[in-house]
């Protein structure tokens, strides 16, 4: 049914009986699903705004493909084939729901769509409009990233739920609610006009960034949560490609690519955590980093600075510092100052304090850290306590460092990071009374 919120998982459950022809058909359908899912949903739902019905029809079309393609071979244009079948299902669905004259306007809409689709060699790409609908300010912020994953990439609710550490039932319910609101409140699938574009683009980029950070917290897997970094990069590429004149879209992509380039280097061969300061730059993905640099240069040419460009520039400066062994801490501090002016977040203030420590020594860093310590949001934030412990240790305040490490360790969910922090704590000098610096 349209409203069960399970999304589509285009091909899940169809795996049972596979000969070579079936396997080839599945591989072909999977490739089309990956590349075209969001495009097909966007095109099918653009007029009716009924995302759930479009997903349903598309899921039926994928099932039909698995039955048809092994027998008759893959069609020349698989995307158009899926679109035609899905559209037919939508029309049938609509006919069943309405009767007689009441169905006329909707059928006419769909017929218009048919004519438009057959007139064009390739389906027009409405995915950008779909992304703006998913990140519409009329939807609650927490559902925007999950909605993008489901509607644009075809992930099922159970996988999305585990990525966001939510129960599948609760996630399914929120997704259904969001899709209902899109349909019933009339949220358009449209790219906002010039004057509205910048404020409306922010939540789109924020949601993509949220997808990435969920994936980032899982350091290893190409499966499971870790794979979300790839999905986020896919979406960021899509937005940056479709909005080439928006420097923040390029900035976000640059930021994600910089981070992704160093993803593998966060663990050594034995699976132990390696902090940035100890990573071997040779282990980074040079191609991704180079692409990020090129994007950042192109974005900065617009002369419209923004949060993601600054964060990408910080990643770039940190990487340079690691490569040369001489980080330019004053420059990094200035980047943090600029970022803090745009995003008054305690986490940014905390990272700025670490840059100050690099530039002026641990005591100055600690003073800067104290200045933001009052923010209650830092109290449960592991990196804050780890940073504090590190600076205290460098100030030879071993006793305080020990208890700050304990806080950090208690807040960390990743065993590798926990082991790293435990080792740092154990390496503190034995408890002499805290010496003066």
């Amino acid at each position, binding site marked *: 049914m349209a409203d069960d919120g399970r999304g589509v998982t285009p091909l899940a459950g169809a795996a049972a009986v596979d000969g070579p022809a079936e396997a080839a058909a599945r591989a072909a359908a999977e490739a089309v699903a990956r590349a075209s899912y969001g495009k097909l949903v966007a095109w099918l739902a653009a007029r009716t705004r009924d995302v759930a019905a479009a997903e349903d029809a598309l899921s039926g079309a994928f099932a039909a493909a698995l039955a048809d393609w092994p027998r008759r071979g893959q069609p020349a244009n698989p995307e158009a084939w899926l679109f035609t079948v899905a559209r037919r299902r939508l029309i049938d669905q609509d006919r069943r729901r309405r009767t007689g004259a009441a169905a006329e306007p909707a059928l006419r809409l769909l017929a218009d769509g048919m004519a438009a689709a057959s007139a064009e060699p390739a389906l027009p790409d409405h995915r950008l409009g779909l992304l703006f609908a998913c990140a*519409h300010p*009329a939807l609650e912020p927490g559902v925007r990233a999950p909605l993008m994953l489901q509607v644009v990439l075809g992930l099922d609710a159970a996988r999305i739920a585990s990525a966001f550490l939510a129960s599948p039932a609760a996630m399914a319910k929120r997704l259904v609610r969001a899709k209902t609101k899109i349909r*019933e*409140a*009339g*949220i*358009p699938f*449209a790219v*906002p006009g010039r004057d*509205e574009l910048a404020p409306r683009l922010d939540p789109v980029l924020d949601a993509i960034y949220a997808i990435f950070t969920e994936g980032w917290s899982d350091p290893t897997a190409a499966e499971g949560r870790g794979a979300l970094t790839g999905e986020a990069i896919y979406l960021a590429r899509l937005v940056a490609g479709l909005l080439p004149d928006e420097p923040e879209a390029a900035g976000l992509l640059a930021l994600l690519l910089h981070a992704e380039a160093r993803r593998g280097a966060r663990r050594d061969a034995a699976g132990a955590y390696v902090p940035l300061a100890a990573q071997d730059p040779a282990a980074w993905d040079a191609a991704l980093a180079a692409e990020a640099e090129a994007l950042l240069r192109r974005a900065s040419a617009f002369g419209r600075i923004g949060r993601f460009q600054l964060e990408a520039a910080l990643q770039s400066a940190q990487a340079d510092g690691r490569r040369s062994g001489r980080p330019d801490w004053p420059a990094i501090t200035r980047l943090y100052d600029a970022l803090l002016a745009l995003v008054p977040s305690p986490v940014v203030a905390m990272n700025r304090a670490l840059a100050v420590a690099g530039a002026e020594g641990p005591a100055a860093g600690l003073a800067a850290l104290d200045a933001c310590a009052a923010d209650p949001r830092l109290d449960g934030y592991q990196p804050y306590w780890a940073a504090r412990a590190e600076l205290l240790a460098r100030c030879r305040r071993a006793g305080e460092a020990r208890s700050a490490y304990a806080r950090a360790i208690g807040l960390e969910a990743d065993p590798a990071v926990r082991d790293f922090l435990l080792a740092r704590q154990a390496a503190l000098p034995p408890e002499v009374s805290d010496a003066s610096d």
Partner: protein
Amino acid sequence: MQYLLMIYLDEKAAAGIPAEVRDRGTAAYRAYNEALAGAGVLVAGARLRPTADATTVRVADGKAQVLDGPYAEAKEQLGGYYLIDVPDLDAALAWAARCPGASHGIIEVRPLWPMMAEA
């Protein structure tokens, strides 16, 4: 699609507004009405008398209960509404933001059931 823009205002605060400010407000609403009508999106609209003039009715066990006063006591009260017909939510939100009430109150934007809208 049809949307109802409901204007919620603090009646008590509104009562204390000096006359010349009130006149400016009236002029702003007049201009807004003209803009809505000029764009061809206005279906209906009205300003409501204060909640002191409200009466509630409910029928329980076949008997009507009539009570003096508004349905709910809140800091802001429904002070007026516009019914507009626009293509989508973004257009409705743009009109809501232009409403003079949005800068000294809150506008709730609600889509109508399509059947009711066509009737």
